[in-house]
């Protein structure tokens, strides 16, 4: 048996030989080490990519904090080792272990994977393999850990259904506690594993794939999901927390450099804009904001306990936060003279104000990012990001006049009905923005154009549309490279192979599980790292399973087609998504739903919850209270 002691002594020899050994030691400030022997339920939280990325994942940091606050449970961390370390571990017989106490993952009760995006799937399987845990859910027995997963990608859980025992759909803060309670009740009571899965499936927000079977039509499209047990819920409704709980503040402080080495505080969850390509915007409704005071107090606590020199005020659309200028000013005032960097990602062009730029002026390094996503007004109407070109140029000019020298512009190619003229317009717009900068600051003005490729996502109004083919993408990128040749414009793009992989997996069905498994067998891992993507392993896997990758990516779907993820409810209804898709075909825009409710489905789904929640806690309108007249007042007293 492998013990923490044997792992530690083997690591002594291995760590000096690998790159960045600080990824594999744990022991950082603020890590929580509890008594292994005295705690009944042990949870390993795994980000299936390297430490440097995983340490910046806020979702896992929240769960780590919440689980460790319980007296009867502990949470420890694990990340996928870099290939050099993985090789060394496999050669030395070291299984994947937790950083806090160096226990093998197979010693834990619950393994929780974070799956924010699809390209982590092969790494997830690889992590299970490195941990010596049976890869397939069906092969696990009572002595194996419960393997759960959550995150945005879990909204289409089907491609990973074979490997994960239970998915958390939606927000994890409350349901993680319930999962631990259910596990605790089951552990040691001698009931079979199936009983545990049944009990979990009764929790709001938990999906247990083993309790369902998928059926397909003769043409290969999805037909329906069938419950295998009477009590299995259908549809499976996502979990939400009615009010955002206080944010965590005791963040672990890594000794080594990580991707986002800063204090992340989520100021708002959800987005009211309704961009049609945006997965997050559809699945994280309703919009809930944290009060300014709560954010500032949390920052104060976090700065004291971590010493970080940068903070990130996070949300999907920070300039839409109701009191954004107040917030930034309050932060600047409270922490003035502390040499604190403030980063405020995801600013909308139309809600950017001069006031906000004034407030952010102290933090000018790193460039200012705007995401028009498309370069023609026609195209922006189709994707429902309606901002005029003039508005964009005005904002750009203000940014340059406020002292920034670089503007980063994010675009996507491959939007529905896009033509080469729309692509050409990206280059024209970049040059127009640069020209604004040159008027203000001359030759110092720069533009970074990041052009990614659109991948249609489930649960969005674009879930029906085909993705561009590799050839289309290559032609569009070649055009951009040709016309964006300017010394002050930096152009970056995504390789079409990376896009294809994300596209297969995003709208995949249960049959994709075998493709993922075989691709991993053939060496696919770290698919999210462009340079490590093993495209031929994926193509071979498709061929071996007898599936056509184009079926998942390039096929236009019928409006009445049933989708493999339809039984997962994000609370936004398919009828609404269909209507919105039809609107997009006519270029009809939908305004910010803070102005007007479009009945997407959130309110009827959560009407009871809405009634119990204070009016200003959600940006959705209030739901009328049912007028129930208590019997006592009707009956006349004797």
């Amino acid at each position, binding site marked *: 048996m492998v013990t923490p002691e044997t792992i530690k002594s083997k690591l*002594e020899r291995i760590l000096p*030989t690998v790159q960045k050994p600080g990824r594999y*030691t744990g022991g950082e400030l603020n890590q929580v080490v509890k008594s292994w022997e005295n705690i009944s339920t042990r949870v390993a939280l795994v980000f299936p990519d390297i430490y440097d990325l995983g340490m910046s994942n806020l979702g896992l940091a929240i769960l780590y904090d919440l689980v460790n606050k319980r007296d009867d449970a502990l949470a420890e961390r694990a990340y996928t080792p870099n290939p050099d370390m993985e090789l060394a571990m496999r050669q030395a017989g070291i299984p994947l272990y937790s950083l806090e106490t160096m226990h093998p993952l197979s010693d834990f009760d619950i393994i929780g994977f974070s799956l924010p995006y699809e390209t982590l799937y092969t790494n997830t399987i690889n992590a299970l393999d490195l941990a010596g845990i049976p890869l397939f859910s069906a092969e696990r027995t009572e002595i194996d850990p419960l393997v759960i997963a959550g995150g945005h990608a879990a909204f289409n859980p089907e491609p990973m259904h074979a490997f994960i025992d239970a998915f958390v759909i939606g927000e994890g803060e409350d349901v993680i506690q319930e999962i631990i309670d259910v596990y605790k009740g089951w552990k040691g009571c001698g009931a079979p594993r199936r009983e545990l899965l049944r009990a979990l499936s009764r929790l709001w927000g938990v999906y247990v794939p083993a309790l369902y079977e998928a059926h397909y039509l003769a043409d290969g499209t999805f037909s329906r999901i069938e419950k295998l047990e009477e009590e299995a819920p259908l549809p499976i409704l996502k979990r939400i927390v009615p009010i955002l709980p206080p944010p965590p503040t005791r963040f672990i402080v890594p*000794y080594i450099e990580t991707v986002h080495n800063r204090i992340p505080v989520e100021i708002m969850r959800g987005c009211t804009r309704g961009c049609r390509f945006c997965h997050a915007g559809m699945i994280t409704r309703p919009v809930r904001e944290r009060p300014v005071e709560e954010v500032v107090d949390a920052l104060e606590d976090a700065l004291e306990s971590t010493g970080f020199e940068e903070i990130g005020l996070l949300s999907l659309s920070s300039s839409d936060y109701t009191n954004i200028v107040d917030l930034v000013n309050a932060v600047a005032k409270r922490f003035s003279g502390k040499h604190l960097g403030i980063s405020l990602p995801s600013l909308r062009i139309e809600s950017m104000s001069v006031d906000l730029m004034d407030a952010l002026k102290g933090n000018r390094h790193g460039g200012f990012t705007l995401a028009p996503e498309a370069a023609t007004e026609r195209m922006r109407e189709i994707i429902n990001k309606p901002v005029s070109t003039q508005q964009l140029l005005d904002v750009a000019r203000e940014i340059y006049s406020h002292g920034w020298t670089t503007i980063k512009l994010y675009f996507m190619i491959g939007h529905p009905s896009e033509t080469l003229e729309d692509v050409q317009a990206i280059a024209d717009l970049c040059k127009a923005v640069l020209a604004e900068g040159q008027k203000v600051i001359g030759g110092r003005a720069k533009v970074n154009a990041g052009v990614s490729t659109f991948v249609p996502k489930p649960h969005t109004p674009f879930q029906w549309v085909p993705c561009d083919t590799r050839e289309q993408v290559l032609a569009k990128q070649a055009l951009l490279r040709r016309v964006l040749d300017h010394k002050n414009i930096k152009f970056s793009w995504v390789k079409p192979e990376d896009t294809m992989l994300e596209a297969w997996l995003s709208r995949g069905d249960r049959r994709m599980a075998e493709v993922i498994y075989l691709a991993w067998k053939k060496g696919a891992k770290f698919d999210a790292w462009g340079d490590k993507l093993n495209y031929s392993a994926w193509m071979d896997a498709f061929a071996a399973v007898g599936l056509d990758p184009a079926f998942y990516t390039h096929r236009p779907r019928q409006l009445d087609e049933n989708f493999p993820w339809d039984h997962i409810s994000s609370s936004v209804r398919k009828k609404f998504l269909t209507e919105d898709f039809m609107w997009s075909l006519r270029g009809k825009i939908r305004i910010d739903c803070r102005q007007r409710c479009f009945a997407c489905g959130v309110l009827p789904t959560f009407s009871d919850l809405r009634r119990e929640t204070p009016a200003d806690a959600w940006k959705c309108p209030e739901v009328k209270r049912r007028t129930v007249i208590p019997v006592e007042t009707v009956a006349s007293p004797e």
Partner: protein
Amino acid sequence: MRFTGHLDLHRTWERTFRRAGLPIAYSQGFHPQPRINLAAALPLGFTSECELADVWLETEVPVEKVKESLDTAVPPGLIVTGVEIINQHAPTLQTQVVASEYFVTLLDSTQDLDKRIESIIGSADLHRERRGKDYDLRPLILDMHRLPDDEEGRSRISMKLAAEPGATGRPEEVLGQMDITPEAAKVHRKRIIFGVQGEGQSRAGT
């Protein structure tokens, strides 16, 4: 902690001072940097008990207060052994370092260890290649001798190696010369030797 590189250690000290609530001074300019100077970079994987840092504070804080505040704020693996105030105009630490003394513990038993040491000491020159450059290791070895074995019976060696700009002796190179792979040894820095009277404003040991 011992796998924290030089730049990351710098960052770790900055955060420690921030947590301690000590008003660390920052450089002027577009990218203000905390004014912390570490005496000599400690290679990845080494431990030490003698690291020195000069740290500038914006305001005067009594040394006892600095020590106390740091004690509550250091992360696991760092211990502050002493703090003293130095003259603002004292030369920088890096320019005063002339040598480092290392205690090396060998994880595997090594045959003829004494002979291997003698052979190194007795050589007139030891030509080695590092990053494509040929150099003579021998003059960088100022002293080298065996220490008593540790409680687990593992052999230990003391090495005093030059540490001047352009002439730095590395324990792993000396081990390489003795046919011992670096991962089969644990290296601990025992002492940093200064040429002129060296004093750190804040002295800390790992």
